[in-house]
């Protein structure tokens, strides 16, 4: 569904992604693990168009699911795929690529309800927005109690739920989750990963970036290991969990 081909991203002169290639298939949970500064967030922001790739290509396969309009400026190649790189961030979001960013990035002065409504900003199908809101509130009952509160008054865990809920409100074809477990109490971490499984079971493809490699690999189908801007290892999540190299570097065993 999502294909990165040898993607290069720079911060000024700093070469942050040195030719990343990865694939996420429809219905999968794929995780991207690696230490701080390896380029995990950079990868997600390049896919989302917050950062622009200076080399390589990013494709979104055009399944035509959801009956979305694909005329939003997406350039189609011969396979009918849409090239995402060089599209502005808001158009990528409108194609169904939704990110829950690192550090949650809740709109602190907007109410919880308004934050969720921002997630559905590009949609006009009001009936399905309503049912997606119900679904999100069923997934995160805590948000239901806080609908009118400003987002900034929520606790860290609640903000994380709001960030994921907000991303889900766009009814994404693929959900990019950046460090959903960061800074959360262990019990909440478990809960968040449980919810990631649920979201995936309901049919959303997920690309998950995590420092908590153990937990990430346990929910994922496949994984990629990122080291200083390069993918050094990839494979089925079970195999990566069993890999002694991964165990030593990322699982703290």
């Amino acid at each position, binding site marked *: 569904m999502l294909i990165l081909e040898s993607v290069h991203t720079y911060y000024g002169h700093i070469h942050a992604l040195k030719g990343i290639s990865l694939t996420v298939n429809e219905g999968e949970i794929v995780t991207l693990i690696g230490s701080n500064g390896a380029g995990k967030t950079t990868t997600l922001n390049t896919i989302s168009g917050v950062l622009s790739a200076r080399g390589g290509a990013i494709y979104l396969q055009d399944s035509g699911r959801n009956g979305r309009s694909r005329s939003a400026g997406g350039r189609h190649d011969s396979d009918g795929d849409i090239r995402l790189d060089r599209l*502005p961030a808001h158009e990528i979001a409108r194609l169904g690529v939704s990110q829950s960013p690192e550090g949650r990035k809740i709109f602190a002065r907007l109410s919880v309800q308004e934050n969720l409504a921002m997630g559905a*900003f590009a949609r006009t199908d009001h009936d399905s927005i309503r049912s997606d809101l119900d679904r999100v509130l069923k997934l995160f009952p805590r948000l239901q109690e806080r609908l009118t509160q400003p987002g*900034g008054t929520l606790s860290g865990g609640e903000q994380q739920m709001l960030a994921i809920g907000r991303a889900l409100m766009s009814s994404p074809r693929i959900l990019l989750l950046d460090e959903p477990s960061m800074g959360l109490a262990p019990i909440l971490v478990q809960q968040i990963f449980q919810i990631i499984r649920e979201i995936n079971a309901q049919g959303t493809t997920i690309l998950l970036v995590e420092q908590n490699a153990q937990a990430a690999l346990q929910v994922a189908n496949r994984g990629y290991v990122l080291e200083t801007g390069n993918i050094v290892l990839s494979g089925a999540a079970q195999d990566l969990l069993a890999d002694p190299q991964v165990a030593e570097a990322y699982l703290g065993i």
Partner: protein
Amino acid sequence: MTSSPVKAQAAGTDGRAAMKQFTRALGAAIVILVVWRVTTVGLAEGYPASFWISQALNGLVLGGVYALVALGYTLVYGILFMINFAHGEVMMIGGITGFFALQFAQARGWMEGPWPVVVVALLLIMFIGMAASVLIGVTLERLAYRPLRQAPRLVPLISAIGASLFLQYSVLLIFGVSPHSYRKPALISGGLRLGDVFIPYTGAIIFVISILLMLALYFIIQRTKLGRAMRAVAEDRSTASLMGVDVNAVIVVTFMLGSALAGAAGVMLGFHNTVVKFNSGFIPGLKAFTAAVLGGIGNIPGAMFGALILGLIEAIGPSALGIPTEYKDVIAFTLLVLILIFRPTGLFGEVLSEKRA
């Protein structure tokens, strides 16, 4: 030797404490001076109550106009963190355009027609002024500010001052130095007399229209999808773009809204002051900026109340302090300096920081 950094630090905190004491003393001195002037001079003049009421009403009218302009400053600051110092000129362009629209209407005799014709024509004149201001505001954003979006914050500020001068002197070149005088139609000349208090129709109309426009803006910002997107962009541009918000479009709309309000203010100020010329946006622009800072820049209700308070202070101040009315600008700008010294976040600053937390 080892104790010297500690000493230096102590001296530093001493210095800061001394500075704080000094500003406090200065503040107290100013309050005492103002109270002394008001009680011994202003109130001793023995003006009747109707005089003060008239002045206060004048102040509210002026404050309403300032508020419309101040909202433009605060909206743009809220989203781009820049002061659009050409905003006063955006208002002036609205006033100049409104003048020509008025002349056109007068030449066709619409201003002497039955009252519905006059009302519709006046509204049209205001909309034409607003449209001209919107055009200028959006052009400014595109040509003078957007190319500098990634530059350090001082750079667009300088560009704004350049744009302000460019607009002033372009108007001077095209329309000349002599003021264009707005001729009020008979329908809105005169006014209401309530006892000893006289309320000119134009004043009442300006105040009502200002309030209506402010309510409309507040509705757009708080209750519409567009307004929600504006608030989201103001908080976090890149996260807003992740939600599918076209940030550039939102910035353009922000300029459009601010400029439309300024255009309306320009036309109404034309009717109020009866003249417009190339530099007639400059001082009101600075006043509106003062009002926005008074309320807390970036804060929308702050701009509204700051402007009304500034209008009142400017209208009542000279008589209350017993100084000539020509010095009302001195009062306004002294106030600006004092706010920047004593409360840089403005009157509504606390509310803002609370919401941010």
